[in-house]
């Protein structure tokens, strides 16, 4: 039973809260000889694997370190270009470290605003009248549950597909939101949520649910 994250999206589609709960870190370090048997490319200011999967290094993984030196953009800390380094046979063997790209806060905000039209189009394209937006979205690695309140705020939980009872959890998060966010005199609506009490209570709730299921909440 794993819950990966909780997101709250305001009525106008902005991300007002996000909490990463248990995101597994996928990292692989491996020594390579010349020539490289995987294809790397530079996109979105990151060096990513574009072809060739082996030993847990998959397409889309980001190069994070070369011989223990951190990669920033396409350069090493000392200003050397990584692609130039990889083309020189005498610099090998090299130990390269790859990890699955983690979402930055900016990307999260971007994704939250992307979910908003998806939600709306899903209800527009409905073959049945008076349909809600997306409630559950399932992929092979996770399941996303979305609960929209009457006031238009969306609570989104990303969890493992086998995790049950998320609907109850979502309502409990809503309750916490009502108790600790809306009753906070320093909170203005539609703005990012920075309430310590809310975060601590949410954290406890998520841990409880993971440990003993939703029966306890």
């Amino acid at each position, binding site marked *: 039973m794993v819950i990966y994250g909780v997101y709250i999206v305001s009525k106008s589609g902005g991300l007002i809260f996000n909490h990463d709960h248990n995101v597994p870190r996928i990292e692989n370090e491996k020594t390579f000889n010349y020539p490289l048997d995987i294809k790397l490319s530079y996109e979105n200011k990151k060096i990513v694997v574009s072809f060739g999967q082996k030993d847990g290094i998959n397409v889309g993984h980001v190069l994070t370190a070369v011989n223990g030196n951190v990669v920033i953009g396409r350069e090493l800390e000392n200003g050397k270009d990584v692609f130039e380094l990889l083309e020189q046979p005498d610099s090998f063997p090299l130990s390269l470290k790859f990890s699955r790209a983690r979402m930055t806060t900016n*990307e999260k905000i971007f994704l939250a605003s992307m979910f908003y039209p998806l939600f709306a189009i899903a209800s527009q394209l409905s073959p049945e*009248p008076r*349909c809600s937006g997306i409630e559950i979205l399932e*992929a092979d690695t996770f399941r996303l549950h979305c609960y929209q309140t009457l006031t238009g705020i969306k609570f989104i939980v990303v969890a493992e597909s086998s995790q049950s009872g998320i609907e109850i959890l979502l309502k409990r998060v809503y309750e916490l939101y009502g108790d600790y966010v809306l009753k906070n005199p320093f909170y203005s609506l539609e703005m990012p949520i920075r309430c310590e009490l809310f975060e601590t209570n949410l954290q406890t709730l998520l841990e409880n649910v993971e440990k003993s299921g939703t029966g306890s909440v």
Partner: protein
Amino acid sequence: MTIHNLYIFSKNGTLLYYAEWNRLNKSGITKEEEAKLMYGMLFSIKSFVNKISPLDPKEGFLYYKTSKYTLHYFETPSGLKFVLNTDNASQNARELLQQLYRDVYLEYVVKNPLCQLNEPIQSELFKLKVDELFKKSPLFLSRAI
């Protein structure tokens, strides 16, 4: 259990085939516009799922569910996309889509030299077979309206 409608998209987003059985709500836009909207939504969902997924996705997006219907999605490695809307009680719609690909699309479109790939499917035989497959399926039970 009901099957509402079916879309087949090519890898570059052309609507190859559309069929509907029980559809109460017309979206109020033309079929072409609707197909573009649908493809755009699926394209966004795919990239959304790729980014938000905590682990490396293999098949990626499988389905989404709203209060009234479920959209099942099946994509072949060649980029062909099958989209089926059913009600929420329907199970195993994915197998049905795989069956549609294997037994109907491959047999009556790919093996038909007169069918141009990546263009809307005109074959009457294909239409007939799709209809047959879905009406035979246990998911297909039209309600009395």
